């Protein structure tokens, strides 16, 4: 009898539980809470070194303590912003001044007199593999977001990639790639590669088509000298060009740009970094500067950009340590010398144009109103 009672109790309670959680959203919400509670154990060291950065009563980013009253944050988010301040753990506002920038990394160092905070200890991110769990830790110790390591460390700087300087025929012939055009002054032109040559081998390996050749070239670095085997009038030739940096910007289609835009804000400077980790964690533009921890609670880097629907970019701790070995450059609020790449520059120019257009529109509206009043 005891068993019966116990059984009926269990089945009813499970029925109640199932009715209560019948909605898929409730199930996934409850599960998300469990995950974020579990993640608290990973944020214990990161929460002590992260501080919010405000301007005009609004949080614009976070900063990570370098000790001695200094915070490290994303530089380009500070542009156009006046009156920067942070808040210490007693919720006292402390003014922050920009002491310098590291343009290549889009980093800025803030001086915060009176801030007493421990110094961040960066861990090596090099041993993390794809799929590793990462989270961005807030000052209250909670994870702002959780994601995985989507893409390991790599350079997003196109000039780091080798550039041969040929336009390739995408037509598949099964053997080699036909040269459609040679860029003047390029590595290819220097060694006499000509239009209609067929590239059959690079660095000792045969290439079947456009994708194989362009993959091999773009995985080579600026300055490398791969051996290239050509077929010209049924004659085999060997050349050894010295690759230059890739100057051509990859175009992004409007359809893709739209998909990124509809999915939330993106940092103005979100490309051109020399070495970053890509994660799928969902953050906002003003979450830049948050420390990133792995499941062992090690601080492996800092959020440097929100770069579209599927991508948050993280600057690895090692690269930050290397950058900070040199003194920072002075901060130039109105100049573009701190910008990383043309994409960022265009973005800022576009933003500025949009702002100016907005101002002009308002001026026009005012004029219109005044005219109507007369």
């Amino acid at each position: 009898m005891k068993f019966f009672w116990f059984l009926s109790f269990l089945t009813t309670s499970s029925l109640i539980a199932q009715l209560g959680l019948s909605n898929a959203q409730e199930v996934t919400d409850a599960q998300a809470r469990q995950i974020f509670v579990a993640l608290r154990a990973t944020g214990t060291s990161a929460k002590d070194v992260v501080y919010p950065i405000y301007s005009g009563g609004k949080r614009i980013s976070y900063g990570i303590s370098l000790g001695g009253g200094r915070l490290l944050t994303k530089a380009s988010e500070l542009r156009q912003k006046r009156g920067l301040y942070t808040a210490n753990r007693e919720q006292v506002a402390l003014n922050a001044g920009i002491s310098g920038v590291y343009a290549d990394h889009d980093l800025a160092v803030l001086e915060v007199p009176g801030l007493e905070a421990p110094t961040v200890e960066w861990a090596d991110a090099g041993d993390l593999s794809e799929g590793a769990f990462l989270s961005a830790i807030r000052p209250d110790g909670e994870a702002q977001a959780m994601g995985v390591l989507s893409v390991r460390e790599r350079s997003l700087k196109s000039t780091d990639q080798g550039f041969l300087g040929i336009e390739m025929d995408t037509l598949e012939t099964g053997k080699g790639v036909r040269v459609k055009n040679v860029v003047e002054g390029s590595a290819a032109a220097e060694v006499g590669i000509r239009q209609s040559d067929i590239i059959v081998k690079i660095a000792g390996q045969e290439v079947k088509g456009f994708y194989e050749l362009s993959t091999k070239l773009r995985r080579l670095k600026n300055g490398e000298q791969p051996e290239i085997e050509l077929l010209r009038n049924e004659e085999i030739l060997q050349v050894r060009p010295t690759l230059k940096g890739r100057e051509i910007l990859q175009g992004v289609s409007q359809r893709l740009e739209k998909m990124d835009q509809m999915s939330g804000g993106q940092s103005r400077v979100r490309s051109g970094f020399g070495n970053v980790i890509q994660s799928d964690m969902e953050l906002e533009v003003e979450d830049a500067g948050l420390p990133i921890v792995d499941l062992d609670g090690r601080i492996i880097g800092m959020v440097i950009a929100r770069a579209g629907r599927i991508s948050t970019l993280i600057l690895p701790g090692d690269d930050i340590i290397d950058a900070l070995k040199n003194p920072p450059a002075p901060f130039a609020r109105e100049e573009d010398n701190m910008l990383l790449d043309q994409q960022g520059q265009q973005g800022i120019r576009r933003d500025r144009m949009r702002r100016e257009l907005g101002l002009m529109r308002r001026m026009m509206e005012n004029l219109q109103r005044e005219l109507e009043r007369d």
Partner: protein
Amino acid sequence: MVKIFVSFLILVPAVILPAAPIVGGLGDLKKLQAQVQRVVLEKTETTVSLVSPTIGASGSGVIISSDGLILTAAHVIERSKEMTVIFPDGRQERARVLGANFTRDAAMAKLIGPGPWPFAEVGESKSLEAGDFVVAMGHPKGYDPTRRPPVRFGRVMKKGNLDFVTTDCTLIGGDSGGPLFDLNGRVVGIHSHIAPDRRVNNHAGLSGFKRSWDNMVAGKLWGVLGGDRRDPNRPVLGLNLRKTDLGLVVDEVPRSGPAFSAGFLAGDLVISINGETTSEVQKLSEIFVDLLPGEEVEVNYSRGDSKLTKTVKLARLGDIHLNERR
């Protein structure tokens, strides 16, 4: 007493195991992480980029057999006959496009060449539930030689019509056709479409793929993206049905349709089609999504007290004049 004990043992697991996997602490997260990393390690090389050399359409795909069968999205292949297949290491091969069911956004291609190719096994999407952990891979924004397919981790958020599955694994253009894996590394979905909400990423479920399998292998192309009830090429029985308390009752039998020739009459009660019980009109139309005009279906129905079975050859919607009484 023995009986009670047995039923107790059976009931308890059913009671204490909830629908969504529980994350009890950091230990559970570490176990989960290890599972995700294993899927990535073992399945990355099965995630290929597909580019049409002629019409320039592009997307992703996944190899699911050692002889090179590729699953992808119908809108990735469009009307291509052949696709260039780019592996994560940059190697390029060619694949012949087989068939596609556009209504399910499901398509198949086959690598040209003897193989053996790296592949992932296929699973089922039917058994997925909200909260189940999944891993998405693909080639977002097209093939990029500077990286391997980016890993996205997430959960099933909900299940939709026609075996579509919604997850919070964020996707973008170029991912279409790429694989959604369960934690055992089995393909359970193929990336299809997204909404502005980052938590709405839709995948064609593998259980739906399986229902269209033979027709796709046979090279058939059919259906309409997003589904169109007015598609003139849609297969139909030629029965106008009405939902009643008893079930689906035949309202009208157009003379030009195959059901008329098979002898169906207004008032017949349709019980099942191809063994699938039909109580909802929606459920009924899902049966036809995987079929083409010319295929035969077995219809169980009742007329008065007698239960009857007829085999009916499906016709094109466009060949039937539904409003002939007017």
